[in-house]
């Protein structure tokens, strides 16, 4: 019981510390903004550890963070193999193919208002559908290896990126297009120099949404059949064996990979759309 009390006390203390920081001058600085969520996260981990230890929760129900950490450290090669199989081969390749295809299709239908009017409502509707349901079908078509996972990811990321790109290509103003016309710029020049750059904030919006979708697609597709490696495979088999520490280790890897993926796309966005109001700091 003393452990539980200590955990709760530490958590409350961390919260009080955060209140102090949030209302001090530190909250305006970069360090302060980084420190507050870090302290909060750390205190939650400590509370979790204390609760598991204090109540003697069985590792089959909820392993302590320390046990998960030990598993991660001990099973690095396995985790790395799963990561390569699911993330690099399945999610990443599918993401690149799907996003590229979506942008290309958006540019192709850009010249036909008829196609746009027809495809946009359908694209919008399809992005609201539980596309993940096609995973078993695609696994049946493309086999158990990463190709079927990449195919699921392609379908999942295609529509959000398509819809956003089409919206982005329409985002220029008449004045800007007129200016390009006075420069005697052709269609492709206008596209390359004005409309695609102007569409970038929208495209990146779609790309960012798609990062999570890509990981979800790759992992769920593995529930329907996979070679004997991969994050989805490991999770479903380890759950069956009640090896929850390994499951949590995979989840930690997935969370890390997902956040890093999102972060990389955000960095690319910052580098490429530095001119956009949402990216300018002051």
């Amino acid at each position, binding site marked *: 019981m003393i452990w539980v009390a200590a955990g709760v006390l530490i958590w409350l203390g961390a919260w009080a510390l955060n209140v102090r920081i*949030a209302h001090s001058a530190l909250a305006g600085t970069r360090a302060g903004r980084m420190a507050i969520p870090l302290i*909060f996260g750390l205190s939650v981990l400590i509370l979790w550890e204390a609760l598991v230890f204090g109540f003697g929760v069985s590792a089959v129900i909820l392993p302590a963070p320390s046990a998960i950490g030990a598993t991660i450290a001990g099973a690095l090669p396995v985790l790395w193999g799963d990561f390569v199989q699911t993330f690099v081969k399945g999610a990443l390749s599918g993401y690149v193919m799907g996003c590229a295809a979506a942008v290309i299709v958006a540019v192709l239908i850009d010249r036909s208002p008829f196609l746009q009017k027809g495809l946009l409502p359908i694209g919008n509707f399809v992005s*609201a559908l539980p596309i993940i349901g096609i995973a078993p079908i695609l696994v049946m078509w493309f086999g158990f290896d990463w190709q079927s996972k990449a195919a699921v990811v392609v379908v999942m990321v295609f529509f959000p990126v398509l819809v956003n790109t089409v919206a982005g290509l329409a985002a220029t103003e008449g004045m800007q297009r007129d200016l390009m016309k006075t420069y005697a710029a052709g269609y492709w020049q206008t596209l390359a120099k004005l409309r695609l750059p102007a569409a970038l904030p929208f495209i990146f919006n779609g790309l960012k949404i798609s990062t999570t979708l890509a*990981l979800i697609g790759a992992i769920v597709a593995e529930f329907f059949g996979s070679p004997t490696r991969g994050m989805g495979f490991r999770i479903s088999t380890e759950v069956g064996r009640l090896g929850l520490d390994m499951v949590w280790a*995979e*989840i930690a890897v*997935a969370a890390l990979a997902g956040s890093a993926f999102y972060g990389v796309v955000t960095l690319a966005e910052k580098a490429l759309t530095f001119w956009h109001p949402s990216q300018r700091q002051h």
Partner: protein
Amino acid sequence: MTDAAVMPRRTSWQRVRGGKMLPVLSVLCAIVVIWYAAAVWMNATWTLDQAARAGTEPTFAEIVADTMVQKRPLLPAPHQVAATLWDQTIEQKVTSKRSLVFHGWITLQATILGFVTGAVLGVAVAVGIVHSRTMDLSVMPWAVISQTIPIVALAPMIIVLSNAVGIDGRTVPKTIISAYLSYFPVLVSMVKGLRSPGAAQRDLLKTYNASGMQTFFKLRLPASLPYFFAAMKVAVAASLIGAIVGELPTGAIQGLGARMLIGSQFGEPLIMWAALFAAAILAGVLVIAVGLLERLALRLMGQPGQGGAR
């Protein structure tokens, strides 16, 4: 938009051409045509295989005819899917284990439960974030990070966990997954919406000597409604995905996700496709229902039909 003095009255045909109906319908037709072509192309291998085994040489017309009626096609033709869908909804009793209405109802329950839980959670956290600077700074980054975690990775574990804790059935774990997926859009939009009243409006309420509670209920909450409903549409779709994913890991026997899994495991593509389309229809109905609710609520509040947050 239409200025009667300048523009002649449009005929109904022009209205159809100018509207979205025609383009959407033609794209849909094109999809069906491509689908049929793909069905012939993908199923022909099996037909040719069978013919080679029987030692016959089928004509093209025979191949096409055969690809339309296979029992276990690689890609079922649209009319096969439609027939299965019809057979498993209208022809079956609603309580039958083979009825998609029955399975859809199971999925819908978890979807609605998760959707409501997620929405309440999202609104509650948003209210906290708007009112507490500490919470804004410490919880918001984690809420963002929580969405980069592929929740489906957690799905099998949530199911085992809730069983271990002694909760029978799958409604609770499915609800948790749905709620996890649907709370985030609500949270983000509500934070935006609750902060949307400008300084002038807040100042006005201050001159009325309004308390924090009064400001919240009379200004912030009504102002956030358009944002709320915009998020609702995203959240309800996400919630359905959560419910279906919750049914995917082995063991489920009820629900649309379980139907897909059964179709996949027993090599019955028609079941799989019918369940997939049932899920699509369900998603469409849910989004439309939320849209109607939005119109109703905004009209009751005296706002014009279209919300401000798009």
